[in-house]
């Protein structure tokens, strides 16, 4: 066999190995076996809105929900996950409301109304921050203050952010920020509040609420909402989150 023929065969074999190797890596990546967050670049999420009305004549219930549908054009799996998380939270709010109607509302012909106004506070290729403003009217009862709850989805890790700790530099920064935000929300409140802090990032700040009871008012419902300015907590935020918020 001539030398040129040997070189040709060797080059062909090397090319074949390179192609097979590339294909192998690509398949592994597709199956999510290689996790390298730096290589996952998602497109900017697109938000589409849908109006949902649910009525239940037996219990005189009407539920109005304006919900987003998140579309991430280059990753169907992630956008499916995000939308499932949103749906789960809506279902949880609906369940709470139906349970309250079943045992607390009067059967006086008045309609029990749940309004869930959902807002996309922040949508970047890294984070989706969503707020749920819930207003409830139970027949025969005085309305409570609206409640503000949140869901944050980490698009890079492809999971719901639990306790929002990843927004901050570390555990200590998270804890300090939580205390600071709660104190800020309750600073002007007169009474003896006992409430849990909920929060989520928004453009140039943090949206926050504290939901619980006021012990000085015989355990009456308490819901305080407010915005925390970026200057107040920026020292605690993780750099990537900070850049997302201030962009």
């Amino acid at each position, binding site marked *: 066999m001539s030398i040129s023929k040997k070189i040709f065969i060797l080059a062909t074999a090397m090319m074949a190995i390179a192609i097979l190797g590339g294909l192998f890596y690509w398949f592994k990546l597709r199956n999510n076996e290689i996790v390298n967050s730096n290589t996952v670049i998602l497109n900017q999420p697109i938000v589409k809105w849908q109006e949902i009305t649910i009525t239940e004549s037996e219990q005189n219930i009407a539920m109005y929900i304006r919900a987003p549908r998140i579309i991430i054009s280059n990753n169907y799996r992630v956008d499916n996950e995000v939308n499932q998380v949103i749906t789960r939270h809506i279902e949880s709010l609906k369940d709470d409301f139906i*349970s309250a109607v079943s045992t607390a509302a009067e059967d006086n012909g008045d309609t029990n109304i749940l309004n869930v106004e959902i807002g996309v506070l922040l949508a970047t290729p890294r984070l989706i921050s969503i707020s749920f403003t819930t207003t409830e009217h139970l027949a025969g*009862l005085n309305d409570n203050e609206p409640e503000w709850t949140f869901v944050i989805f980490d698009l890079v890790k492809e999971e719901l952010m639990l306790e929002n700790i990843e927004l901050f530099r570390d555990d*200590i920064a998270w804890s300090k920020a939580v205390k600071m935000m709660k104190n800020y929300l309750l600073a002007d409140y007169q009474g003896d509040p006992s409430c849990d802090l909920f929060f989520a990032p928004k453009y140039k700040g943090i949206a926050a609420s504290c939901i619980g009871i006021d012990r000085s008012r015989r355990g009456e419902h308490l819901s305080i909402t407010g915005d925390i300015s970026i200057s107040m907590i920026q020292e605690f935020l993780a750099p990537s989150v900070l850049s997302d918020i201030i962009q």
Partner: protein
Amino acid sequence: MVKIVQLKLSKIKYSGDSIGRNIRVEIEVLGKFLRIDKRIKAGTTAEINREVGRFETDQRLFQADVLITVIERDILFNDVGNTKGNIEVNTAATKPQQFVFEIQVRESRSLLSRLFWGKRTAIFEVTLEAQIGEIERCTPDTEDGWLVAQTGQGKWVSLPAYITVYPKSIKNGREYFIPSEGTNRGKLLSIPLKDDNSSYLISNVEHESMINAKYSISEKVFMLNGKKYKAIDYLEAPWEKGIYDIGIPDYPHGSNDTYAEAIRQKVWFPINFENARYLHVGARSAGCMTIIETTRWMEIYNALIKARKGDFKNVGTLKVID
């Protein structure tokens, strides 16, 4: 209004001849049965104070047949006497009402001993005491652990499972009641009756004795009934060694959808350390004692939710150790 008649065996007076000391008293009232074994000396009175049963009634006069049997227990020959009687309890009375029954027990020994000792008869006075009380029910354990009720001020509040309540009335399809423990103690609340006109409130709940839990700061382990559960706290807000009360859950916390695998995740137990921290399920802590074994939360929940310390506020104590 429905009331409850609590009937107790108050005391046993032993007079007449002595027939022995090993006395058994059996009382049967409307299907409830009490048996007491007690060593009693002739000529004395033994205080018993044991409940025979609780009976619900909406009548002004509660009547019931009573069967009382007294046995002096011997190895060979038991001496037995009994009586049938009746009690009539005025349910409007606030003071305890007593009913005394006399039972004669004639000794029934062998023929030989009869020749020596003759036939002796003991007289037992058995005193039953009826106390009128309000009927008790409990809140049910709902899907998320909270029962939403209406207050008299047109607001709504949430009650955890197994809160003792006193039903007051039923009006326009709603049942009115007053919780006797927890955050909403003493408030007049209401919930509707179910579609079949039965109550959401449940009966025959036996609260359990207070729990004694432990938490190891160094191991980050919560210990309960010989089991260990992984937990986390927060270094910057450390727990201090000591004994703290674990309270009855106060109000719903968080949301239902954070931890898919943790049922009753909205039920947190307050701990009276530094303005109420909590024992709850979760992943992080800003000072609370957070159980990170989310799938095992129900074991802790089930142990705590029915336990009572007896002060209307707490389910038990937590000992924080090194």
